């Protein structure tokens, strides 16, 4: 059976070769002319993007303010300031947003590693899954529908990733007293200080706390983190090295904050018993 299919595929290919030999046209000049025009279009588009990027940057085109196509550069990297938005380049948005759909800890591995690996393996396996010689679009409904679904889902994920809201530290500082009231730690000075650190350290770019925050990268909600009673020592150790405590966690180390501030953060987390 299988060899019959192989014989058929070989026959189709031999026929293709004979047909092209008999009725095809030489690559040069016609096809090559089309290739040349298309390549020129590509180069012009790239130059155009570079020009728009530079000349829509406000001021003297040297600033870190975004133009139409984004910033020329952000502020210099500072491993000490943790208030960051872990945002990849736009063509990774579909993966970036995929991670929001999955929740720590049950299924986040599926989003970070599982689905991309499966997608890559499926792509490699495609010619061995689809073994028919048939190439006409109307006779390949399964392949075409699968292709359209992939394009739509990648488009939606990219769009959602691009428009995902980001939490900004300066606005969030104003929410601290409301959090403290809801969670009932207004009298605990260390916890309130920790909450302020929490607001400005970029934690809410991924985590959710009392309705604020970004829900990125499968980060768990922290509104009732203290109710789990993991203890201040655990919280500090986890902040220093998240993946040591939770293998597989993509959270970066916050050891750069220093022991004193980590203790405040840990106190804040342990005082967050859930909103009342």
């Amino acid at each position, binding site marked *: 059976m299988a060899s019959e299919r192989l014989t058929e*595929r*070989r026959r*189709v290919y031999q026929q*293709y*070769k004979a*047909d*092209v030999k008999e009725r*095809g046209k*030489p*690559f040069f000049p016609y*096809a*090559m002319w089309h*290739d040349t025009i*298309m*390549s020129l279009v*590509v180069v012009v588009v*790239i*130059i155009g*993007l*570079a020009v728009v*990027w530079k000349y829509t940057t406000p001021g003297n085109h*040297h600033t870190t303010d975004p133009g139409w196509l984004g*910033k020329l*550069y*952000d502020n*210099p*990297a*500072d*491993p000490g*300031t943790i208030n*960051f938005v*872990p945002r*990849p*380049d736009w*063509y*990774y948005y579909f993966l970036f947003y995929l991670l929001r759909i999955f929740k720590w800890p049950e299924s986040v*591995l599926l989003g*970070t*590693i599982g689905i991309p690996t499966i997608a*890559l393996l499926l*792509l*490699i396996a*495609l*010619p*061995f899954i*689809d*073994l028919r*010689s*048939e*190439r*006409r*679009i109307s006779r*390949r409904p399964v*392949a*075409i529908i699968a292709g359209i679904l992939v394009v739509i889902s990648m488009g939606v994920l990219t769009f959602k990733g691009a428009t995902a809201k980001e939490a900004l530290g300066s606005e969030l500082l104003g929410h601290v007293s409301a959090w403290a009231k809801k969670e009932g730690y207004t009298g605990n000075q260390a916890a309130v200080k920790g909450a302020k650190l929490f607001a400005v350290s970029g934690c809410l770019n991924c985590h959710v706390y009392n309705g604020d925050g970004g829900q990125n*990268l499968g980060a768990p909600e922290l509104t009732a983190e203290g109710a789990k009673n993991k203890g201040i020592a655990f919280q500090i150790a986890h902040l220093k090295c998240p993946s040591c405590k939770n293998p*597989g966690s*993509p*959270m970066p*180390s916050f050891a750069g904050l220093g022991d004193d501030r980590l203790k405040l953060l840990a106190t804040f987390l342990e005082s967050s018993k859930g909103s009342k």
Partner: protein
Amino acid sequence: MATRTKPTRGQQLQEAINYPLDWVEERSGLVGGIKYFLFRKVPGDVNWFQTLGSATFTAFLVQALTGVILAMYYKPDPKDAYSSIQHITNDIFAGWLVRGMHRWGASVFIILMFMHMGRVFLFGAYKFPRELNWIIGVLLLAMGLGEGFTGYLLPWDQTSYWATVVGININGTAPFLGPFLAQFLQGGTYINADTLSRFYAIHMLMIPGAIAALIGLHMYLVIRLGVTSPPWSKEAAGTGPLEQPSQNGTARSGLTRPGTRKDGR
């Protein structure tokens, strides 16, 4: 005895051109190879969509060229990386253009790879005997995305730094290989000064070398196996078995392929 006629100017010119070509041809076969490349037959109805592959290659060449120029000024060291990027963007003549072309050429390259892949998928051009070339293409796509990931860190600004921290952490979560991959990328247990130079080496030597080699193989296979015709093509080469003139002359016979070919016209 033949009299020796003086060669005309045209003949002399011809000989002057042919001599070096023949010299190269005799020693390498390159001229014949290029002739074969240029004058090989492709189906008569190749489509504009089929220029996406060479367009992707052009985008790669733009990346290679602008990358080499950037490498002349960029300093892969946490102390100097950011200021060298500012220097390229603001001080060097047309530096902003070269960097802008590299930065946006990356996006164009990746879009074109996806479009080219979509075209191959739509045309069913991954089918026998082109399976291997499809796999090479998938590897090229993965490597192109790897270029995007490693290049993103190089400006050493806040966005690139923290995106890479999280990106490496995500790599580290993979079962079995993950921790090793993360450690290899970082050059240590944590992101450090060596991480930047390591990303730089991967970005400008390791992956581009592999991409160039695979593109060569990819194109070799395209030339060897031939270009597919669009799947909607009526007269095109190698259409499927259903379009064969039917033996017992049912309605389908002669619909899309003239039956005359059978007797070896």
